């Protein structure tokens, strides 16, 4: 069945759910107990996910830790999970950030703590499920089900205009999701028409060789869902609202994990299922990615609220990821995947730091700060390191990812790299300018003098992230190696299928005429 002979992935997916039940069951009048239960379960999940790395076989592109049980046999729905080099790190990132996010909420959440931690744990289940599902039906269930806890998280524990942000987030993401649902159904019936088998199994559906127009329509149906989630320009407008209004832990998971679902969706579904369309549309997507990079950076530059600055910087960074993925070479794709992790770490940490500052001063306006280094050096140090990682300073994680992406983009088309590189410069501008205004200079405000530096718990929250930031920056090999085989296989698949189709032109292949009306 799999290399462990144990359904480890299911265990990881449902452990947080069990945790949510446990949190709801404990006595709500004892907040310490609630927090401890939540943290216990999220750390258990993190621990349980470590064997994924330890037992991961880096030399194969096949799905590992596979679980496959028929679920609704008459419809060909399987309960099917598995990870490969592409999803391995995303699963680990999710378990890691979830535990950190829960630990970071200790003092920030004072109302309805019990429900809060339960919702966080349910969210974790949904997020992990998205990354491990290899059956399209199962994937869709996790993809949509995860919306509800995030919606509640923003809507109940968020900032002043949280309801607007929560509803906007929900409707945007759902709109994309339902189009993907129609795409999934169409793919399912096309596959049945070609092979005579009803299945939602991704691995089976990947064998399908669709004609170009079918690929194009299905690619669009799937990609709108992913593009909204990434978010790619021009679908990004929900992001600043949701990020700014969400509670700190919500922003961390939103930026750290949820956005990656979009880029992950492209790598996992859009590229291998519809390679010809992906290749045909790659220049448009790259153009949108570059617009996102530059636009996100420019908008970050003018933000007065540091949380908004970080939010818009995500648009820019995710543009890089998309650029790398659509360069269709190993540097670009590996860089893109690594950059997903990097962004999760550094932007997650930035949101955590901003949240800590907000807890102390109840403001996030850059103008209210200045000279923080003198008042809270430890805090400022953390902010400095994380910001530099976000900029992509050599020696820190961001550099490795951005460098690989730019190499990949250059190999594909030097213009892509040239435009993309402006984003690196701009990110240095907005980040350093922010640092200069907040951390350095004179300590002017009275209120800032009495600030307390990081507590032991807060150090515990940030330290693991900072360690990883250095580790990936200095020695990225252990992180890149597991994804090597999978990315090579993916690229081979995208290229070979693409070439067959170029030779065949846009003729439908093996699809009965009666079915062609499905996508015309």
């Amino acid at each position, binding site marked *: 069945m799999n290399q462990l002979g144990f359904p480890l992935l299911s265990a990881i997916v449902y452990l947080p759910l069990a945790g949510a039940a446990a949190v709801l069951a404990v006595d709500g009048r004892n907040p310490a107990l609630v927090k401890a239960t939540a943290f216990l379960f999220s750390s258990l999940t993190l621990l349980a996910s470590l064997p994924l790395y330890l037992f991961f076989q880096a030399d194969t592109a096949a799905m590992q830790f596979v679980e496959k049980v028929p679920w609704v046999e008459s419809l060909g729905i399987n309960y099917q999970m598995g990870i490969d080099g592409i999803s391995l790190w995303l699963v680990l990132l999710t378990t890691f950030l979830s535990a950190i996010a829960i630990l970071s909420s200790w003092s920030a959440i004072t109302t309805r703590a019990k429900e809060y931690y339960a919702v966080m744990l349910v969210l974790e289940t949904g997020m992990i499920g998205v990354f491990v599902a290899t059956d399209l039906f199962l994937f869709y269930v996790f993809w949509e089900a995860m919306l509800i806890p995030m919606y509640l998280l923003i809507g109940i524990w968020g900032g002043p205009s949280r309801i607007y942000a929560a509803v906007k987030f929900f409707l945007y993401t759902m709109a994309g999701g339902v189009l993907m649902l129609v795409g999934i*159904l169409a793919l399912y019936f096309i596959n049945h028409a070609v092979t005579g088998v009803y299945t939602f199994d991704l691995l089976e559906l990947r064998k399908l060789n669709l004609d170009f127009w079918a690929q194009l329509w299905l690619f669009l149906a799937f990609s709108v869902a992913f593009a909204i989630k990434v978010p790619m320009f021009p679908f990004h407008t929900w992001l600043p609202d949701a990020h700014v209004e969400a509670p700190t832990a919500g922003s961390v998971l939103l930026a750290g994990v949820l956005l990656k679902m979009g880029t992950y969706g492209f790598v996992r579904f859009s590229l291998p299922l519809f390679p010809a369309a992906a290749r045909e549309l790659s220049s448009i997507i790259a153009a949108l990615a570059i617009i996102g990079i530059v636009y996100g950076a420019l908008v970050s530059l003018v933000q007065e609220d540091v949380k908004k600055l970080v939010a818009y910087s995500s648009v820019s960074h995710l543009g890089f990821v998309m650029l790398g993925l659509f360069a269709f070479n190993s540097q670009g794709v590996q860089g893109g995947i690594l950059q997903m992790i990097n962004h999760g770490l550094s932007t997650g940490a930035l949101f955590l730091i901003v949240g800590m500052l907000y807890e102390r001063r109840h403001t996030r306006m850059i103008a209210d700060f200045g000279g923080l280094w003198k008042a809270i050096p430890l805090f400022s140090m953390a902010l400095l390191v994380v910001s530099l990682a976000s900029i992509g300073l050599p020696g820190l994680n961001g550099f490795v990812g951005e460098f690989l992406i730019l190499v990949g983009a250059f190999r594909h088309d030097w213009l892509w790299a040239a435009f993309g590189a402006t984003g690196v410069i701009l990110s240095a501008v907005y980040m350093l300018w922010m640092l200069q205004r907040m951390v350095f200079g004179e300590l002017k405000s009275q209120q800032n003098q009495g600030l307390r530096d990081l507590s032991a718990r807060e150090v515990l929250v940030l330290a693991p992230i900072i360690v990883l930031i250095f580790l990936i920056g200095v020695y990225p090999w252990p992180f890149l190696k597991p994804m090597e085989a999978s990315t090579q296989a993916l690229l081979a698949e995208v290229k070979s299928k693409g070439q067959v189709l170029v030779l065949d032109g846009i003729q439908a292949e093996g699809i009965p005429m009666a079915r062609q009306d499905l996508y015309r």
Partner: protein
Amino acid sequence: MDFVVPTVDLGSIAPALLVLATALLVLVGELFTAPGRKGALAVLALLGVAGATAKSFLLWGQSETAFGGMVALDNYGLFFGLIFLIALGMTVLLSVRYLDQMDMDHGEYYVLLLLATFGMMLMASGTDLIVIFLGLEILSLSLYVLAGFARTDLRAQEAALKYFLLGAFSSGFLLYGAALTYAATGTTNLARIVGFLAQAGVAGNPLLWIAVGLLMVGFGFKVATVPFQMWVPDVYQGAPTPVTAFMSVGAKAAGFAGFLRVFLYAFPALSVDWTWLLAALAVLTMTLGNVVAIAQGDIKRMLAYSSIAHAGYLLVAMASNSQAGVSAVLFYLVAYAFTNLGAFAVVVYLARQGQEALELSDYAGLGSRAPLVALAMTTFMVSLAGVPPTAGFVAKFYLFGAAVEAGLVWLAVIGVLNSVISAYYYLRLIVIMYMREPSALLALAESTVGAIFKI
């Protein structure tokens, strides 16, 4: 002219007869129960429901026709019968306390509910336009009275009158459609209509098209598709809440039972003509229901428009005109029945002596006042919106799957986009329950009754 005495096979409609017998028993029993103790009649009604349900399970899998082909005993009819019985059982459970609170604890109430269910079951198993019409009339007449059951309430009177006038009007359409069908084909029996059309073809028979059009209008009124939906919001708002729940689930399912049986079984020869019409109606119905629901401030009106939208989704499956479409309709109706009855159950549960929680603002802060009820309501809303992992999602999945399989991708796209619109107003209730502070005072005691609603 020969006169053949049709074989009388009561066994084939046993579940419906059990419901009818219970109705008569309750009617008699009403005489012997003192005012204020009518709850005993509810128990009797529930026993009848249980008996009919058991009988339906026993008959499951059989397939025969009775009464000279006017009634069929098949899984289709039994399945619908079970939906009606679920709706009836839950409505009776909801009604006991409600009737007491609203001071209208009269025994006829249960009689009328049972009779309406009898009509529904007749409609679902009828294979002759006359029987279907009879079932529809029994159902409708009972519901007209039930809609106006709150005698002293002006709004209920308006609802009942409006329902009666429009309902009678639509019955007229249906009957005229049946009559023209008879004129065109010489029979009202569905099987013989199929036989006639197979032989004679459909060309050169304009009466037939008019007949099909009229039947569509008649059924359209009953299931509330656009443009025949105007009565829904007022009637749903004015009727006693448990009756609204019953109508929104039972009467709608009954309408679809007849609609499906007649169109998919008797008129497939004309399907080229009516599928696109149904598709167009589906688009209009979904969109109007959902868009107008957004503007509602009264929860019963909101659920009324939502039920119009759901009729639109069901039309999508019907327009697919396939076995998959029929299965999708059946599954969808079950999921919808539980979800919608649940939602109305919460509304009933929150009612207090002589006064109901009908404004959306009455739900503010419910998340902290009554967490279990709010959680239940959240589940129902999420399911109505069709978000996984709920029954509503699986139902929509089947439904749009049927549409995509039939090549109606555009219709499926419009359908799913409509569920996004619908998510807006379903979510709004969640927003109000969890994210707004209570404006009113209603302090609710947590009670175990809440558990019943989750069933």
